[in-house]
């Protein structure tokens, strides 16, 4: 009989190590019943189990059951002789005392504090390896840790604050809790009239610790604080701060919650959606405990919503109601969790749950509620067709036009060559285009893997890229002017046919690269949905899309080079070609002006130094062309001078004055976004601004745009910032919001992704009335499109 009880502690793994000492330290009561009662009632629990010994030995845990028995016997004798008060824990008897796997202490953020101060108190629970304690909602099983403060008059404790817990296995019985260590925090407020002197702060902490088995325990922890005339942080203040950093944030992304049909069962699907790229990895929702319902632990991440981009997160949870006639909860509260390791973040939420009917309207595409089944916005082949058409149309966009001129020139000059040579050049050009697109695809995939939000044309938000491209475009223009020669333009004017065929190849390839580079700031019709789709797909699909767009861009030249007969529509080669070439330098200069303007948004007035650098580079190109390429003497000296001019310009203007690689971002004075006195009264876009305007019953026009987006600029001047639209906006009392994507802020990337777009332009019109979904305007606008959308919005 007695023997059975001695054995008890030994049955708790890990007890052996500290049996003797643990017993002494534990004055733990709360869960307990008088020990006497235990003796009175038939003592049960683990009983004597021969099998236990065997298992132990098999596992190699040979630390000695006899020793455990011996120690347990001593404890028992001590307990009996001491006539233990009711404060002794009853079940697991002596083992309950000895079997603690959690060390508890009380930390205070200050050794001394002034009246009126708030001192952070922390209950530090250190668990033995593999043991855990529970969060405020224990989950499927277990029990939360409880703290009951005993405070002197004039000191009050706030609510317990719980650091982010972990989901603990097994899957069948998921719980929320802590392993190793947790510090539960509570702010202690000292009254302003507190007299000076030392104060005793104490708390009774009751917890359930579990591993293979569970043990309830409790203890009283205490600490002292001195009230005086100064605040002195304690040695533990830093530790407490670290744990404060692990509390969920109370403010962050706006979160939407809605029921998903069917909603008439005992269990319902609750959808949660928010955008926060820092939480994109393994996002989850840890609910608060409900009275008569339970948000179950399993989490489904709705994968189709990946099309909304890495920052937009959509989870589905099952909610089970216990009492059949009680109403369904109207709001959901808990903590959104995401990220891994040290970057794991949490967001405390309490949001109303929308009925599914009104959900489609909350600016969420209607496809969302059925997204898991419907999956893609359109089939893959259709999206690929869009990609191809988009690539084809890209040829006509203003960005690519200058290159096309070069290309035509190349064709003309090669028209006389063998058809085979023309074909090869066509293929090499296509290769250049496609290779560039595949490089872009690689960059996109890499960025996605690194957790960033890539966007179409995003490289234009990098000033380094803009400067390099501006330099390149300048050199192309100089070359077209004839300032110097490079085997460019398909080797148009090279005489030696041998050289021409080789350098022609290089030129054709380079043309392809240049066409692609310049094409990216333009979004053509068809391209926008295709890209929006592609950017959220796995790597191979991204590559396939970029390949298809490249194919579309290169298609006209491929066709022409395979059907040289069609080339006869082009004029015969002749002196006009030289003039045409020079003429084509002007669109290049126009491109340069555009790039220079983009650089302004990064460098501000310092862009002057970029201008100086460009002029010096042009001068260097002239020296090189005039005295090295065409000169007869002192060519080495001329080369040195050209190099000095270029490097001097680089070193002085770019490096020293401009600090071009690390510019200070110049904000564009968000206060007043009016273009002119009569201009549209733009306000900066934010989800809150949209919500506020809609709540006020106003229609909303949103223009997502960027300085580098030529299509956006074209839209603005042709169809948005025009008198008729201004008047219409006033007439229907609409709010105009502008989302500046020049520096690709994540919040806008996330919003673009919600509308399945990878980049700007994106123009939205939200009709009046809070329930109507936003109307997405096409990528290329006409005044009619905008006006009729606004008409329908009022």
């Amino acid at each position, binding site marked *: 009989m007695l023997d059975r009880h001695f054995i008890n502690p030994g049955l708790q793994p890990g007890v052996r190590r500290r049996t003797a000492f643990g017993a002494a330290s534990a004055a733990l009561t709360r869960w307990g019943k008088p020990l006497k009662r235990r003796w009175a009632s038939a003592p049960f629990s*683990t009983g004597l189990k021969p099998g236990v010994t065997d298992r132990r030995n098999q596992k190699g845990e040979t630390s000695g059951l006899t020793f455990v028995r011996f120690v347990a016997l001593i404890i028992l004798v001590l307990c009996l002789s001491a006539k233990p008060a009711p404060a002794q824990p009853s079940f697991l008897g002596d083992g309950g005392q000895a079997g603690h796997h959690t060390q508890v202490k009380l930390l205070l953020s200050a050794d001394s504090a002034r009246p009126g101060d708030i001192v952070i108190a922390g209950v530090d629970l250190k668990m033995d390896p593999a043991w855990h304690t529970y969060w405020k909602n224990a989950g499927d*099983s277990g*029990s939360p840790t409880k703290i009951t403060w005993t405070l002197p008059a004039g000191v009050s404790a706030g609510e317990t604050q719980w650091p982010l817990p972990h989901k603990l296995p097994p899957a069948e019985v998921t719980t929320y809790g802590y392993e190793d260590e947790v510090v539960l925090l509570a702010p202690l407020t000292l009254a302003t009239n507190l007299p000076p002197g030392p104060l005793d702060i104490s708390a009774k902490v009751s917890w359930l610790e579990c591993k293979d*088995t569970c043990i309830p325990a409790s203890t009283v922890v205490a600490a002292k604080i001195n009230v005086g005339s100064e605040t002195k942080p304690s040695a533990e203040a830093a530790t407490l701060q670290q744990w404060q950093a692990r509390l969920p944030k109370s403010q962050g992304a706006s979160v939407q919650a809605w029921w998903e049909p069917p909603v008439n069962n005992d269990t319902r699907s609750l959808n949660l959606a928010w955008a926060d790229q820092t939480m994109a990895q393994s996002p989850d929702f840890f609910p608060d405990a409900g009275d008569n319902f339970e948000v179950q632990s399993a989490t489904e*991440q709705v994968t189709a919503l990946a099309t909304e981009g890495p920052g937009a997160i959509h989870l589905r949870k099952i909610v089970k109601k*216990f009492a059949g006639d009680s109403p369904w909860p109207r709001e959901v509260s808990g903590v959104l969790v995401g990220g891994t390791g040290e970057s794991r973040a949490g967001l405390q939420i309490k949001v109303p749950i929308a009925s599914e009917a009104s959900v489609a309207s909350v600016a969420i595409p209607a496809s969302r509620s059925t997204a898991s089944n419907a999956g893609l916005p359109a089939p893959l082949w259709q999206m690929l067709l869009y990609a191809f058409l988009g690539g084809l149309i890209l040829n006509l966009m203003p960005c690519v036009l200058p290159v096309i001129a070069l290309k035509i020139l190349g064709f003309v000059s090669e028209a006389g060559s063998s058809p085979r040579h023309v074909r090869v050049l066509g293929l090499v050009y296509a290769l250049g285009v496609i290779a560039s697109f595949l490089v872009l695809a690689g960059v996109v995939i890499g960025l996605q893997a690194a957790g960033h939000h890539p966007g179409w044309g995003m490289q234009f938000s990098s000033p380094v890229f803009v400067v390099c491209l501006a330099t390149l475009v300048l050199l192309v223009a100089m070359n077209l002017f004839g300032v110097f020669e490079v085997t460019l333009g398909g080797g148009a004017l090279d005489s030696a046919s041998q050289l021409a065929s080789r350098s022609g190849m290089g030129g054709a390839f380079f043309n392809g690269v240049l066409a692609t580079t310049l094409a990216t700031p333009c979004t053509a019709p068809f391209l926008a949905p295709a890209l929006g789709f592609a950017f959220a797909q796995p790597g191979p699909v991204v590559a396939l899309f970029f390949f298809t767009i490249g194919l579309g861009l290169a298609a006209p030249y491929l066709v022409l080079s395979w059907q040289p007969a069609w080339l006869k529509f082009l004029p015969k080669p002749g002196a006009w070609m030289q003039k045409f070439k020079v003429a084509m330098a002007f669109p290049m200069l126009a491109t340069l002006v555009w790039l220079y303007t983009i650089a302004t948004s990064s460098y501000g007035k310092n862009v002057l130094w970029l201008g100086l650098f460009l002029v010096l580079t042009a001068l260097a190109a002239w020296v090189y062309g005039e005295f090295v390429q065409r000169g007869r003497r002192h060519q080495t000296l001329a080369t040195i001078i050209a190099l000095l001019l270029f490097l001097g310009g680089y070193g002085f203007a770019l490096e020293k004055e401009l600090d071009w690689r690390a510019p200070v971002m110049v904000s564009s004075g968000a206060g007043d976004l009016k273009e002119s006195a009569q201009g549209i009264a733009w306000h900066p876009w934010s989800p809150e601004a949209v919500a506020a305007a809609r709540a006020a019953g106003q229609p909303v026009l949103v223009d997502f745009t960027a300085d580098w987006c030529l299509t956006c600029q074209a839209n603005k001047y042709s169809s948005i910032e025009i008198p008729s639209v201004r008047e219409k906006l006033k007439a229907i009392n609409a709010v105009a919001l502008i989302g500046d994507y020049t520096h690709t802020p994540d919040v806008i990337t996330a919003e673009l992704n919600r509308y399945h777009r990878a980049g700007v332009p994106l123009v939205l019109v939200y009709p009046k009335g809070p329930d109507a979904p936003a109307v997405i305007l096409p990528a290329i606008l006409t005044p009619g499109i905008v006006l009729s959308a606004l008409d329908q919005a009022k």
Partner: protein
Amino acid sequence: MKKTFALFAALALAASVFAVEIGKSAPDFTGTDITGKTVKLSDYKGKIVVLESYNSDCPFCNNQYHGGATQALQKELADKGVVWLLVNSVNPRNPSHRTAAQAQQEWTDLKIAATAWIDDSSGDIGRLYGMKTTPHVFVVDAAGNLAYAGAMDDQPDPSHDPKTARNYVREAVDDLLAGKPVAVTQTKPYGCSVHY
């Protein structure tokens, strides 16, 4: 990968949600009790059956038994013709596992008054019913339909006096015997995890 995970999650959801449903036929099972006898749920058709996930090392379960409260309830209901089956799903590697001999010893020591103690160390029955905690109780009506699932009583802690708590099992059985619809059909079970 993501899709696989989603599929897995969906399956897990389906498993946890649709394991058993109130008002639907309780899934049949066959198990072996600690005396080696075969126990089949459908053999008890015509009688009310209580299933209880059981592990006396768990303080929540212990609390129900160490004062004799559950034994008394088992006797009370047995007199009314109710069958009470303990389902012990603790896996054999867990220190709380009981061999048949240990279980019989415990049965005697604790004066357990249930109909049988089923050795479910494979966890099959526990998973079939989605048993999460010890204790987690299910009441099956005479027609074989699930009438109650959830906690033993309304005090989710391991130190209350179960004799004074509101016992949902007694209420459900009494409602069934009185021919009334069961008032409380579901509650959130509490206790230790079932150690599958």
